[in-house]
C-alpha cells in the first residue's frame, strides 16, 4: 500500500555506520537494563537476603514462669520480633508451652508439622490434634498419628529472671523447621 523510499541494502559483511550505531544502542540498553536490574533484584529478594544477613530470629518474652503450672500445657502468644506497620493482628503468634517440671519446658509452634494448620491441645487425652488433615501428637510433641512426618516444631527457650523467653520470629515449615534447629534434642521423635 504505502510506498517506502527504496534504499540499497547494506552488504552482508560490511558494518554500516547505521548498523554499528544500532548495535551500540542495543548494547547501551543492555547495560542500562543490567544496572537497573541489580537494585530491582535486591528489592525483590530483600525478604530472603535480610533473613540471611541479620536473621529474623530473636529472643521473645512469653511471660512469667509462674504463669505456666508444672505438668500442664498452656497457650501463650507473642508479638513477632519483626513488625511492619501494616501487619495488624497477623504479627501476633500463638504457641503451646509445656512446663514439664521446674525450669524444664517445651515450647511448641502452633503450626502442624504437616502443612502448618493450628494444632489444638486436649489435656484430657494428652494429645495435640490438627483440624486440617488429622495429624495428632503426644504431649511431648512427638508424632502420634496422621500425615505429619515428624513431631511438632519446638522453639529453643531460656529462663531469664523468672521470665520464659523463646527464640522465635519465623514461620516454621517442614522444609525449614527453624524453631528446632537450636534445640538440644533432635527434632524428629
Amino acid at each position, binding site marked *: 500500500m504505502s510506498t517506502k523510499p527504496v534504499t540499497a541494502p547494506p552488504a552482508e559483511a560490511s558494518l554500516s555506520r547505521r548498523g554499528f550505531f544500532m548495535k551500540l544502542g542495543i548494547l547501551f540498553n543492555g547495560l542500562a537494563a543490567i544496572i537497573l536490574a541489580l537494585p530491582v533484584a535486591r528489592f525483590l*529478594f530483600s*525478604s*530472603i537476603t535480610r*533473613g540471611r544477613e541479620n536473621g*529474623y530470629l530473636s529472643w521473645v518474652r512469653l511471660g512469667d514462669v509462674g504463669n505456666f503450672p508444672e505438668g500442664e500445657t498452656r*497457650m501463650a*502468644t507473642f508479638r*513477632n520480633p*519483626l*513488625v*511492619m*506497620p*501494616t*501487619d*495488624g*493482628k*497477623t*504479627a*501476633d*503468634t*500463638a504457641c503451646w508451652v509445656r512446663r514439664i517440671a521446674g525450669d524444664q519446658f517445651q515450647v511448641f509452634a*502452633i*503450626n502442624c508439622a*504437616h*502443612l*502448618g*494448620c*493450628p*494444632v*489444638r491441645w*486436649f489435656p*484430657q*487425652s*494428652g*494429645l495435640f*490434634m*490438627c*483440624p*486440617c*488433615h*488429622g495429624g*495428632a501428637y*503426644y*504431649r511431648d510433641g512427638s508424632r*502420634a*498419628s*496422621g*500425615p*505429619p*512426618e515428624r513431631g511438632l516444631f519446638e522453639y529453643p527457650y531460656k529462663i531469664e529472671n523468672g521470665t520464659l523467653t523463646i527464640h522465635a*520470629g*519465623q*514461620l516454621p*515449615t*517442614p*522444609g*525449614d523447621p527453624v524453631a528446632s534447629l537450636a534445640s538440644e534434642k533432635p527434632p524428629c521423635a
Partner: protein
Amino acid sequence: MRLITKIGEWFDHRLQLAAPIREAAGHPVPRNTASWFYVFGSAALTVFLLQLVTGILLALIYVPSAGEAWSSLQALNHQIALGWFIRAMHGWGSNFMVAIVLIHMVQVFLFGAHKFPRELTWVIGVFLLLMTLGMAFSGQVLRFDQDAYWGLGIGASIASRVPVIGPFAVKLMLGGPIIAGATLSRFFALHVFVIPGLLIGFVSLHVLMVLKLGINEWPMPGRIVRRATYEAEYHALTKKDGEPFVPYAIWKDMFFAAFIILAVAACAFYFGPFGPTGQPDPTIIQTAPKPDYFFLWLYALLSLLPPSLETPFLLIVPPLAILGLILLPFLSGEGEKSWKRRPIAVVTVLMIAITLGTFTRMAQFTPWSPHMNAWSGDPVPDRYIHGTTALERQGALVFQVKQCRNCHSLGNTGGQRGPALDSVAVRLTQDQLIRQVIQGGGNMPAYGNNLSPAETTALVAFLETLHPAAQRPAHDAARELVLSNGQVRTSGTQP
C-alpha cells in the same frame, strides 16, 4: 445519519481499524462449527471481562493491608450499597471462570482442536488455565480471613519442601519471615497487576490465533489430520462450506455469554458473597481452614496420601502434569480428531474427571479431620447405655472425656478419622481392644500413657457392649482354653 458516517470516516482515516475488524468479523467458518459446543471459549472471555469490571469495582473500597483488609471486606458486605452483590459477583464469577475454562479445555481436547496447526493455541491455553488457577488462589488470599491466613501457611509448607530452594521460596512468597502485611501486599500485586496483565496478553494471542488459523472444523470420524495437507483441506472446506463468522456463528456465542452473565448474577443474588470467615488473627486457633472449591481435590489428596509419598508427589506430579499438557499437541499433532475414534482420550478425560470429582466430594465432608468438638458436643446415644452396668457407663464417660469421639463415630455422629465403633465388639475381642487402646497403631495414637488401668478396663467394658443385638461379640476361643487350664468349656460359648 450522514453525520455519524462522516465522524466514523474521520476516525477510521486515522485509526484504519475498520477494514481489519470487518475482515475478522466476516472471515468464513465451517458451517458446522456454528454449534452450541463452540461457545465456551467466548464464554470464558466474557467471564474474564466480568471479573475485570467487578474486580475494579471492589478495588474502590478494598484495602490491601493485613491490618485492615478484613474490615474493608466487612464494610463491602454490610456498609456499602450493594457491596455484597459486587463481592458475590466476583466470587461466583471466579468459580464460573474456572469451570468454563475446564469445560472449554475438555471440549477442545475431545474435538481434537489441539492438533496441527493449533498446537501453540493449546499451549497458550494451558498457560491461561494455570493463570486462572493462580487468580483463584490469590483471590482467596485477598479475601483475607482465617481460611486465607492458614491457606497461606499450607502454601508455604508445600513450597518449603522443594529441595534446596524451598526455604528461600517461602520467604519470597511471604515477603518476610511470617504471614503478615507484606504477604497480603504481594498477593494483591499478583492478583491485580501481574496475573491479569499476563492474562490480557495471553488471551489476546489466543484469540488472535483462533482468527488467523481458523476455528477447528467439526471433527468427522475418518477425516485424518496430516501436516502436509491439513491447511489446504481446511481452506477448501471453508471456501466450499463456509459462512461468515458474523452473524452466522456469533449469535450463539452472544446468547451463551448473556446467559452466563445472568447465571453468575443469579448465583450472586441467591447465594451471596463468600465470607469472609473469622478474622485473620493467628492467635484464634479455633478454626478448621478449608480451601475454595477448586482446590478441594488437593486438600483431599494431601490428607489421603501416605506421609512418605506426599512430598515426592507434590513436587513431581504437578510439573509432570503441566509438562504433559504442554507436550500433548506435539505428541499427537496428527491423526483422528473425532472423539468417536479416540477411546483412550475419552477414557482419560473421564478418569481425570471422576478422580477430581471424587476427591472434591470427599473434601466437602472431610472424613479425615477429627471433629474437634465431638467429645463435648455429641453425647453417646441413649440406646448404647440403656441397660448397661455401672462399669460400662463409666467406660462411656471415659470414651467421651478422652476425646475418642473426635475420631470415632457412634450412631453416625462424631469424627470419621477412625472407624465407626457402633459394632466394634464384633470385630475385636477383649484382648485386641485392650491392645489397640493402649498401644494404638493403624493410624491411632497410643493411649497407654493417658489412661489409668481402671479407665482402660471401663472403656473396654463399654466397647464390648457395642455390637448389634443379633450378633455376638467377637471372642478368643483359645483364651478360654488357657484360662480354664486346658479344660474345654462347652457351655455358653457355642452357638
